[in-house]
């Protein structure tokens, strides 16, 4: 805020900050409405893969696309704060841990009687066929998590690289101008 005698710092208003960063108001509002709905739809697609079209791979990609929409609307630094690198790494491994772990649980719980990934031996208190369906649900969730984390990690790597290159080009331009 400029003070009465002309000293003080000049702070940008929210509108000017947004324009300076290259973002648009309409896209921000629509994205902030759509992103939770996209994520809800993605979870729906993962779980309902057993009843209709869908499944782990499809739902995982839709979940990743919600993060990509966030990056496009709000910029990448904010997105990295929302999904930090440690969480991304952890989720990438967690999904396949669930998948391979369900198979190992099948062997261990039945003391080596059933084979790997034979879902009947899971210790769930339901009938046989429903145990198979629930085993499949666990596995689908695992696949969805891994696919989502991998897609966002790929996108972030490529987008950071471009951001670094743009910053390098800008700095070399400024350095050229200063000279």
């Amino acid at each position, binding site marked *: 805020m400029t003070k009465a005698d002309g000293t003080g710092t000049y702070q940008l208003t929210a509108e000017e900050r947004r324009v300076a960063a290259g973002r648009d108001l309409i896209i921000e509002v629509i994205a902030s409405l759509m992103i939770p709905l996209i994520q809800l739809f993605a979870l729906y697609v993962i779980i309902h893969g057993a009843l209709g079209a869908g499944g782990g791979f499809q739902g995982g990609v839709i979940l990743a696309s919600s993060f990509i929409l966030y990056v496009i609307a709000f910029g990448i630094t904010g997105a990295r704060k929302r999904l930090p690198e440690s969480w991304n790494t952890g989720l*990438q491994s967690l999904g396949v*841990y669930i998948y391979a772990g369900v*198979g190992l649980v099948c062997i261990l719980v039945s003391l080596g009687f059933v084979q790997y990934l034979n879902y009947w031996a899971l210790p769930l208190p339901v009938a046989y066929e429903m145990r198979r369906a629930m085993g499949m649900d666990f596995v689908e969730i695992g696949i969805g998590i891994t696919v989502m984390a991998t897609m966002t990690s790929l996108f972030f790597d490529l987008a950071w690289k471009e951001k670094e290159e743009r910053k390098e080009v800008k700095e070399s331009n400024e350095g050229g101008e200063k000279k």
Partner: protein
Amino acid sequence: MIGIEHLPVLLIVLSLLAAFTIFVAGWFDKKFSWAISFITILVQLVMSIFILNHVLFTGKIDYWLSGWRPPWGIQVVVDTLNAYVLVVLLFLALLSVMYSKRNIQHELPEKVITYYAVYQLLVTGLCGVTITGDIFNMYVFVEIFSLAAYALIASRGGIALKASFVYLVMGSIGACLFVLGIGFLYSVTGSLNMADLAAILPPLYGNKMVQAAFALFVVGLSIKMALFPLHTWLPDAHSFAPAEISAMLSGIIIEVSTYALIRLSFSVFTVNFLKLLPIYDLLAWIAAIAIIYGSVMAIAQLNLKRMLAYSSVSQMGYIMLAVGLSLSTKHLLWGGLTPALMHILNHALMKGCLFMVAGAFIYKADLWNITDLRGLGRKMPWTCGAFTMAAISMIGVPPSVGFVSKIYLIFAVVEAGNFLFMAVILLSTLLNLVYFWRVIETLYMKVGEAGPHHEYEKPVKTDEIPLLMLIPILILGSLCIVMGIIWLTEIPIIGAVPIMDSVNKLFEIGRYTVVP
């Protein structure tokens, strides 16, 4: 309790879980990544020795994944051929991991965690190809190890990226042809299981889709195993990869592709199909050209790793010549697939040692060309000693391991009656001598930095590589001679000859040939 039949799949699952754990635990501390990788591969090696023991003395392991019976579910079949390739693979992978600790600290210090995670996935993919009994499953694991290999070769950055990109394009085309062959077989028979296909295919040998599928399998796997006309990715990929990845690439990855071709042509398309058309004779001729071509191109190289890469092309020619002659030989000792399987182990030992020594020279003083290696024989005596042992083994001096391969191959050629191949083998021995002797002469007999008078007066201080890199080189170098003595005297403790014999009996070649 958990019986031994669960071991093959548990081996794969353990490796997968370790890869993911390296990725997560490395976030906390970098030192965990090497330790987890090393311990996992050690445990896997012990498990694979148990599997080999069980398969040799009790019978093959037959495991129905997810509990469904074979044409409907996936089957894991481990017989002696599988178990043998698995042990060779994991042994060389263990020595590579041991070697890589100091090497990767020196070359890529900031990428240690992801490097070991991708390395563990490479080992997973290779083991998965070896144990499976279902052709689509084999394709999935071929994809896993191919992707990991592309990433590992390119990990140094710079010109390695271009070399890996060429490998990526050619490898993807090869995998594409492979899956096209699987599709053809499926559309004609409806089944994806190897034993099932072997039972359904006999009346369909005249079917053009089946013949096209076999041709596509051979070409697709030839790209992955660097057989002569399709080898062009190999020299670049070897020259610019980190040293232990070159050792793994040349010693294991192209040999697992050879194993896949042997498994497909003998277990799915049985011997009766291969005798209908002179396919294997054509393969033997292509292999003979590969032997001469690789040796001649190796003489012309200045870069040490590139020379060893062309030498690999030549050695794959040896293995494919042995495979191509396997239908026409009937002796107990050298009949059937015995020379090919022996050379898989021998080549892994020799080339592993040679590439690791080349990496040691680069680690110590960044020496890439042969002419720069002058006088290193005195500065690094143990390393150059191991190089000499592996080099004389490649040339074929008795009683080393290379001599055993060549002599069995010559006997097989004599029995098959084609004396031109014997001339090819002897000529390539001579060419091997030319290019390896050049390196040995530069190492030991050329003068180093000290002038000609000082060499005899004052002792040169030895400046060896660290111990963790030296132990794998010494183990491989000494095994080149020790294993040769074991092969020659056929000590039955190791069970080497019973392994090859039971493989011959399974596929009905060699001395078990069914006379129609």
